[in-house]
């Protein structure tokens, strides 16, 4: 049976009359609250409050409860003394790499009394991975999954769209950015949601340079909690300054985006737990081996004197250009392999607060961790080389700029 155009429209009218109810749509409270979180004037205070809650819960759970409350006690009080005793060959190379590099006091070999200083794969490596990073990324991904499932993330994307366009990105760039605060590896993968090569390159470069991962933030929260705000502020400012510059010089397009903002919904336990588990499992598979291996390699390089040699070689640059003490050269070189442990090492070096802020910012922007490096390589070697080129320039320019700000303020 073939219907003419007129008959088709008549049929459509008849069906719509029987199935569609017409009436005046009335806004519900949920709709009105939803609108408030998208409008800049009211949405920005809400975003500020949600970020506050995010970091407060992160610090309380990962720092106060899990790491300080239980894991420090477990690792320093039980695990470290046990493994120092049980592992054979105290003072040997293998012992130093796996358990404790220790130190010499009045010519005598002395064991470390905490896992931060031991620098062995089975002590510092395990403590950082299980005692610091695991609680940090668990609570981070749990909060993120809740925000996604409640329906807040698309609203945040809309809210930040205008700002992110200034750096050649769009609102959805907030997803890889926030994911990277947990671990840079899924963050780099998530850059695929951006449409053009230019956007993906800018995003990947900014993630690798300016977004500290959960491991780093966890350690910062542990060893320099009072400076964390300043360090993050420097990184956020750098993210926008260099994003703006990259947007101007990188050729390509940065298109607009269309997004369907869903209504607020009650999150489902099943969905949230699946997301959190998937992301943590990903961290264990990809990033955890690098944490353990990184510790072992850092110890080995220290033992071979390689880090000391490179540190001495680069010390004039660190002291003269960046304004940090000579002793920071070693941890800054070691940061190539383990940024989190480098932060811990920096915290015990005698220096002013401003020098410590500079040194920790340098550790963050200095080089992506090995796992991120591998992920970036997977996305394309040309992009990786270009990103490293940008990174080298940024480290010198931004590091020098922070030093200059310190000189002008009279604190450097």
């Amino acid at each position, binding site marked *: 049976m073939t219907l003419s155009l007129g008959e088709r429209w008549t049929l459509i009218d008849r069906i719509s009359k029987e199935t569609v109810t017409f009436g005046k749509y009335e806004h519900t409270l949920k709709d009105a609250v939803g609108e*408030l979180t998208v409008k800049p004037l009211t949405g920005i205070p809400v975003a*500020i409050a949600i970020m506050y809650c995010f*970091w*407060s819960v992160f*610090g309380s759970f990962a720092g106060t409860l899990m790491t300080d409350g239980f894991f420090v006690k477990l690792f320093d009080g039980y695990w470290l003394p046990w493994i120092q005793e049980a592992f054979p060959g105290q003072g040997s190379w293998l012992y130093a790499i796996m358990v404790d590099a220790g130190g010499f006091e009045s010519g005598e070999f002395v064991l470390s009394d905490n896992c931060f200083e031991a620098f062995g794969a089975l002590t510092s490596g395990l403590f950082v991975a299980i005692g610091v990073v695991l609680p940090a990324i668990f609570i981070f991904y749990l909060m993120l999954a809740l925000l996604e499932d409640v329906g807040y993330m698309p609203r945040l994307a809309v809210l930040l769209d205008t700002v992110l366009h200034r750096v050649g990105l769009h609102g959805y760039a907030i997803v890889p950015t926030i994911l990277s605060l947990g671990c840079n590896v899924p963050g780099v993968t998530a850059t695929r949601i951006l449409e053009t090569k230019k956007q993906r390159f800018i995003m990947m470069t900014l993630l690798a340079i300016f977004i500290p991962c959960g491991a780093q933030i966890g350690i910062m929260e542990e060893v320099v909690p009072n400076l964390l705000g300043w360090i993050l502020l420097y990184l956020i400012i750098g993210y926008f300054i260099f994003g703006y510059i990259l947007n101007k010089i990188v050729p390509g397009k940065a298109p607009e985006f269309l997004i369907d903002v869903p209504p607020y919904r009650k999150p489902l336990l099943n969905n949230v737990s699946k997301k959190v588990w998937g992301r943590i499992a990903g961290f264990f598979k990809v990033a955890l081996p690098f944490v353990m291996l990184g510790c072992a390699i850092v110890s080995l390089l220290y033992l071979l004197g390689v880090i000391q040699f490179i540190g001495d070689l680069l010390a004039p640059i660190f002291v003269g250009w960046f304004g940090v003490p000579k002793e920071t050269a070693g941890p800054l070189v070691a940061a190539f392999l383990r940024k989190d442990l480098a932060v811990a090492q920096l915290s015990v070096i005698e220096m002013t607060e401003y020098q410590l802020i500079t040194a920790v910012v340098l550790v963050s922007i200095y080089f992506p961790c090995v796992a991120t490096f591998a992920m970036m390589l997977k996305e394309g070697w040309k992009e990786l080389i270009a990103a490293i080129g940008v990174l080298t320039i940024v480290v010198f320019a931004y590091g020098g700029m922070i030093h200059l700000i310190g000189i002008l303020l009279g604190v450097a």
Partner: protein
Amino acid sequence: MAEQSQSQLQSKSSSTAVIYFAILGIVTTAFGLADILVAAAGSEFSYGILEIPNDLFRGGWGGFIVLFAGLFYLSGARNIGDIHQFAKVAMGSILIWIMAGSDIFAMITESIPGGEDGPWFNTLDGFLATYASPYAPAILLLPFSLVVIYYIYHRD
């Protein structure tokens, strides 16, 4: 007649809400400003059961959130019968819940472990002592902000 008395009742309830949330807005805004000033000065302020933190995170950042909550209340209290205005009042309360919830969660995480040299878990006395006064402004404002739930369920 019945319709007229119901309308009078609603109008009375609405004016009570306006007065209540306007006062709450003024108090919340004052607390927010006090939070920011104390954080800027860097010295802690304590009076009775009230304690204003002096750190930049809870006092400074948190102070701005309390201030925004107060402004939401004040802005929404005018013509509260309109759903969009009432949503601002609800949002003011949500901001207080976020602040107070974060502070209470911080208390819970502090109260469970036994401390650096103590046992694994806190003693009952130590656990309860963590929840004793003084409290941050957001926690003191929490019970007053809950009134919005009554109005959410009793709107028309």
